């Protein structure tokens, strides 16, 4: 989707920004085809392996649920890094967000939880901004320090405020939220008559799979999930379609140039990093909403995964959403069904075979042979293995992310001044 800025809107084309986001230029068609191909493949694998979980609406619903915190953290990363500040501290800000959400949520309910989580995350962001922007500390150092600090701070705050064990709170967890966030389902299609559900249960080739996907994404969607999904195009519009966004991104591309044009570089970076922290904090809120409490260690490295999704997505909202979605899908599958993970081996075998053909076409025989060998390996594994050991299953999403990343051609482009400390007059 990186065409959005580079390719100018065609003079005649009056496409809206949203369409532009999802269907920009020639690549949009490629993405659409890729998507259809993937669904076809998934559908075929489902039928061959008999693993209905592969494309069931519940898997997609789980994927969405799992993708949201990662996606929010990645969005947080997007704001910071587009403004030129590398944010390794996403994990820490997310941790602060979970605590803030738990604390505010148990006293005042879910709306307060959202605000509390965002504010706590933003405080982490502010700290990062002070260190990196004002004091010029190396971004990675500051991020690592914030991760350490966040861990200590939440434990400390819990010790301070929950030590009495009031209402189910304790050193490692908050009391339950005072109220539950609402959730929504698409009427008629996904709830009530549940037409999509009927189609899904019919187990038709492709049709049921797509119904499963749609139903998974439209039934019982939490309010924060909705917010997160909306934040993706919203971030795109904000960053690529407004003056504010242009200024923010200019700080990540060439802060010196921005400075000479009167853009308040330091202030922009502050704003971006604080937003970044707030978004990571919202990611934490998403986790709290799942459990209805704050629980220490709840984030489990999802901030780092968010960072990976950001890079995976080439520092773009659509891309990072795709990265988070892929990860969420694989994770959901892994948590749902060990059998479905074995079915993925078949999928991988088919994909590798395709890669082999492609490489033969390019006359790169070594790569082709390698791909064939791995494809054969996957196929054999698929045919012989009943159930994978827990240890192996646990890293399915990580392995898949890595595989997709290494199979996809790499033309990633990070903001040019990302991670560089900017000091006025010293560039």
């Amino acid at each position, binding site marked *: 989707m990186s065409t959005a800025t580079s390719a100018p809107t065609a003079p005649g084309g009056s496409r809206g920004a949203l369409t532009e986001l999802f269907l920009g230029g020639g690549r949009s068609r490629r993405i659409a085809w890729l998507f259809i191909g993937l669904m076809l493949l998934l559908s075929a694998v489902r039928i061959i392996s008999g693993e209905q*979980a592969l494309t069931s609406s*519940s898997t997609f619903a789980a994927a969405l649920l799992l993708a949201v915190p990662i996606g929010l953290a990645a969005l947080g990363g997007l704001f910071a890094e587009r403004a030129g500040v590398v944010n390794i501290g996403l994990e820490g800000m997310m941790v602060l967000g979970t605590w803030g959400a738990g604390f505010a949520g148990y006293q005042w309910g879910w709306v307060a939880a959202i605000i509390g989580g965002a504010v706590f995350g933003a405080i982490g962001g502010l700290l990062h901004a002070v260190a990196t922007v004002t004091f010029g500390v190396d971004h990675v150092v500051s991020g690592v320090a914030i991760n350490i600090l966040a861990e200590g701070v939440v434990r400390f705050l819990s010790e301070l405020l929950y030590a009495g064990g009031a209402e189910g709170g*304790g050193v490692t967890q908050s009391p339950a939220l005072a109220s539950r966030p609402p959730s929504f389902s698409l009427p008629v299609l996904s709830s009530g008559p549940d037409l999509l559900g009927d189609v899904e249960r019919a187990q038709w080739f492709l049709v049921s799979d797509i119904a499963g996907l749609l139903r998974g994404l439209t039934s019982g969607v939490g309010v924060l999930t909705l917010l997160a999904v909306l934040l993706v195009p919203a971030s795109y519009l904000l960053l690529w379609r407004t003056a504010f966004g242009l200024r923010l991104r200019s700080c990540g591309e060439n802060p010196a140039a921005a400075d000479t044009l009167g853009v308040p570089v330091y202030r922009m970076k502050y704003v971006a990093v604080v937003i970044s922290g707030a978004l990571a904090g919202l990611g934490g809120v998403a986790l709290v909403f799942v*459990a209805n409490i704050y629980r220490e260690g709840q984030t*489990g490295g999802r901030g780092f995964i968010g960072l990976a999704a950001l890079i995976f997505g080439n520092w773009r909202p659509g891309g990072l959403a795709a990265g988070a979605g892929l990860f969420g899908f694989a994770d959901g599958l892994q948590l749902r069904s060990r059998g479905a993970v074995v079915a993925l081996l078949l999928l991988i075998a088919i994909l590798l075979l395709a890669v082999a053909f492609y490489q033969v076409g390019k006359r790169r025989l070594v790569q082709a042979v390698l791909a064939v060998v791995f494809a054969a390996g996957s196929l054999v594994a698929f045919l012989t293995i009943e159930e994978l050991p827990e240890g192996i299953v*646990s890293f399915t999403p990580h392995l898949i992310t890595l595989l997709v990343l290494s199979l996809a051609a790499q033309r990633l482009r990070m903001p040019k001044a990302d991670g560089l400390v900017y000091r006025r007059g010293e560039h």
Partner: protein
Amino acid sequence: SDDESSSGGTSGGGEGDLKVGVAYDTGGRGDKSFNDSAIAGVEAAVKEAGGDVTEDIQELSPNADGSDRAELLTQLAENGFNPVIAVGFAYGDIIGDIAAEYPDTQFAIVDTSVSEMGVDNLTGLVFAEEEGSFLAGVAAASKSATNHVGFVGGQESPLIAKFQAGFEAGAQAVKPDITIDVKYLSPAGDPSGFGDPEGGKVAAQGMYQAGADIVFHAAGGSGEGVFEAAVEAGQRAIGVDSDQYLSASAEQQAVIMTSMLKRVDNAVQGYIEDFAAGDLEGGSDILNNLETGGIALSTSGGFIDDIQGVIEDYRQQIIDGDIEVPTTP
């Protein structure tokens, strides 16, 4: 060995100067789980002995990676605390050596058998989790309308495997053809599965959507996610360790059918009382099971009142030894 252990007992057992050291598992006090349960037992025992709960108890938590566990135990022993109670099997690796180093201090470890370590001043407080889990399985199978239940474990480990094994055996004892979904949230060596409510929720959701109507969890903090999934699905869940019905929100109370009770508090309290009374028999385990009441099934909420007869029946068979509950699945 009898002499030594009783001497250990008498040296610390004098009225008033009972000073108990507690070394927690990661998470520490306030984990709403067995750390809290253990300290409750300690406090009850100390109070009973006329001690002061703030003065006479020293609690220590390990650091995040647990690398200073040995240091916790030695420091407690060095500073004259006796007995020293290690909460959690993570101490199993090191407690033997340390107990041997401080023969005048009595040590106890929760969840680890010490009978083969050959250390006289060390007691294992072990539980027959499989027996309680068996009853949970009986309850689940009896109540399941879909003939389909689930089990969510935290970290893949021998301890949680006991829960799974008992649960499966119990469910199959009632309905031999019952479907049982099993999922561990993290592999061996990765404790994150005990603190991952999101994973717990997704896993349980999957089970409910696949047709299960009752899910038993032994996943610590991740259980919160299992309950949430039950609330959303309108199905039932079974809690673990403590009576989770009592600490749950109203929505969750509607779905927590029962809990498999593991009375760490009772075990610890009993141990300290034995210590104070000077009748500790060191170097061996104190087994807590259905018979001793250290393991039980809760009835709060009254969801399983109607099948109490069945449960009691199986309970008696286990106590009588008529049913041998497996400890590995």
